[in-house]
């Protein structure tokens, strides 16, 4: 393992933990049958900030998400989360470091109700899960907070509906609710507003802003209006590489970024 950078060693351990990077990758690469979907990415997410990850289709954004959350193992390189080497941790171990994510392709429990979803997410922070001898009444204490969460994402009326019966926009909202239920320190959202109506997009943006306080957020988003509004930093990917990284205004005028997006339009 390479030694820590000097930046870390000169700080006191406590400071390093509180305002270090929430996420740091070192040369992370993922190959699918020889094709490099993610290619030598050095990503650094500052704790407590909202970052947007943008780039044309197929740039490797979702693959990078999967590498950060343990759903893919890098072909090479390292992933550090809150300063801990997470390269070889399982997805559930990474989740329990305080990481929550949503999925680009809606990923829910089809035969469970919306309320059951948030209860499961709330229960996951406790040790109730393995109690096969307990009554399900033990879950009742999560119900008030569960309903509150559903309310926050506009699902108060859908608590008892099965996930499979929800319209697409409400499924997206439920994804967000179960990610928030875990009170994550690091929140990764893969296109949270895709397929939502205008009103829901507005609510989702407001919600992301509201929950962002004190958390590190990484958001994949195609809607540049949303990016401009919520993100303090923008990371641009193209063909597996990070081609630009900085505040929205700076990145927007970056020639490489313009070329990448024009290239996409041409194609």
């Amino acid at each position: 393992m390479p030694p820590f950078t000097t930046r870390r060693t000169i700080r006191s351990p406590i400071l390093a933990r509180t305002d270090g990077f929430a996420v740091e990758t070192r040369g992370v690469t993922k190959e699918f049958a020889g094709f490099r979907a993610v290619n030598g990415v050095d990503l650094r997410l500052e704790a407590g900030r909202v970052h947007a990850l943008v780039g044309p289709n197929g740039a490797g954004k979702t693959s990078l998400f999967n590498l950060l959350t343990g759903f893919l193992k890098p072909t090479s390189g390292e992933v550090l989360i809150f300063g801990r080497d997470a390269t070889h941790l399982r997805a559930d171990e990474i989740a329990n470091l305080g990481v929550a994510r949503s999925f680009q392709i809606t990923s829910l429990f089809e035969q469970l109700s919306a309320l059951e979803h948030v209860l499961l997410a709330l229960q996951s922070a406790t040790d109730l899960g393995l109690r096969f001898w307990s009554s399900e009444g033990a879950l009742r204490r999560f119900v008030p907070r569960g309903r509150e969460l559903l309310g926050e994402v506009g699902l108060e009326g859908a608590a008892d509906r099965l996930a499979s019966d929800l319209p697409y926009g409400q499924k997206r909202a439920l994804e967000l609710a179960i990610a928030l239920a875990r009170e994550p320190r690091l929140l990764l959202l893969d296109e949270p507003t895709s397929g939502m109506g205008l009103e829901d997009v507005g609510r989702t943006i407001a919600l992301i802003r509201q929950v962002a306080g004190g958390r590190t957020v990484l958001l994949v988003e195609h809607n540049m209006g949303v990016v401009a509004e919520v993100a303090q930093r923008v990371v641009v990917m193209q063909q597996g590489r990070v081609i630009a990284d900085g505040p929205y205004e700076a990145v927007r005028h970056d020639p490489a970024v313009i070329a990448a997006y024009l290239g996409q339009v041409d194609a």
Partner: protein
Amino acid sequence: MSGRYPRIAMVVGSAVVALVLPRVIYSVLALDILLWALFAMSVDLLVGYVGLLSFGHAAFWGGAAYVAALLARDLRLAFPLAALAGVLAAMALAVPVGYLSIRRRGIYFAMVTLAFAQMLFYLVNELRGVTGGENGVQGVPRLLWGVSVTRPGDFYYAALPLVLLGYLAVYRVTRSPFGHVLAAIRDNEARAQALGYPTPRYKLVAFVLSAGIAGLAGSLYAIGHGFASLDLLHWTTSGTVVLMVVLGGTGTLWGSLVGAAIVLFLRDQLSSVTEASDAVTGAILIAIVLGFRRGLWRSLAALPARAVRRLART
């Protein structure tokens, strides 16, 4: 859940049925139905609630049966203790088997569990000195601390509390916080992991619990019949119990009872009428599976509601 009272009514109703059953059909068949139903529930706990189709549950049913039968005969243990030993043996066996199989899904999981069950079958056959080989363990006494339970009718009532305890255990597991996580894993394992649940551990615990339930059923079966034989470990036993679950409907528990009752009742009735009883049983079962795709239990349970709707329309 909408119906607390209907549920209580069903439980009381079934308890009454269980009590009078040996007066309606002969008590050996009655106990067989209850025990196969318990066995089927153990399989349903995995298929219906975790999404794992085990094709090797004969290992736990039969393995426990041998342990219980040997202990009851050679150490003259009271049958509840022998059954307890059978349960523990099945659970102990399930730890390595489960550990190695739960990483697979679908047909691969079924194949790995089948392979382990076949290994146990051959092992028990080879260890003739202990297991009696093809003859099995015979002359197993039904002992209960001096109380006489040798007559099948008496044994039915003596075993009934343990069987009901088994049903309750399965029911409780499926309705526990743990059961909720299992349902999540069944629907979408990756999502459950993203919520921080170490899903392999959950699946392993479910597998071991399921094996314990199958072991309880198998132990009582062997003691009830007075012998344990290789049939109990044969792959067709694993197949029959899966058939019962599918017939009754997965993920319902009651379906296991319905499935077990139909299969055993058909076999029993037809074997006295025709030589080709297995073929006829098979044909009838295929017809039921095709006719009630959601399983008999869900289809039957939906009938009252449908009748009400039809009445409302007229």
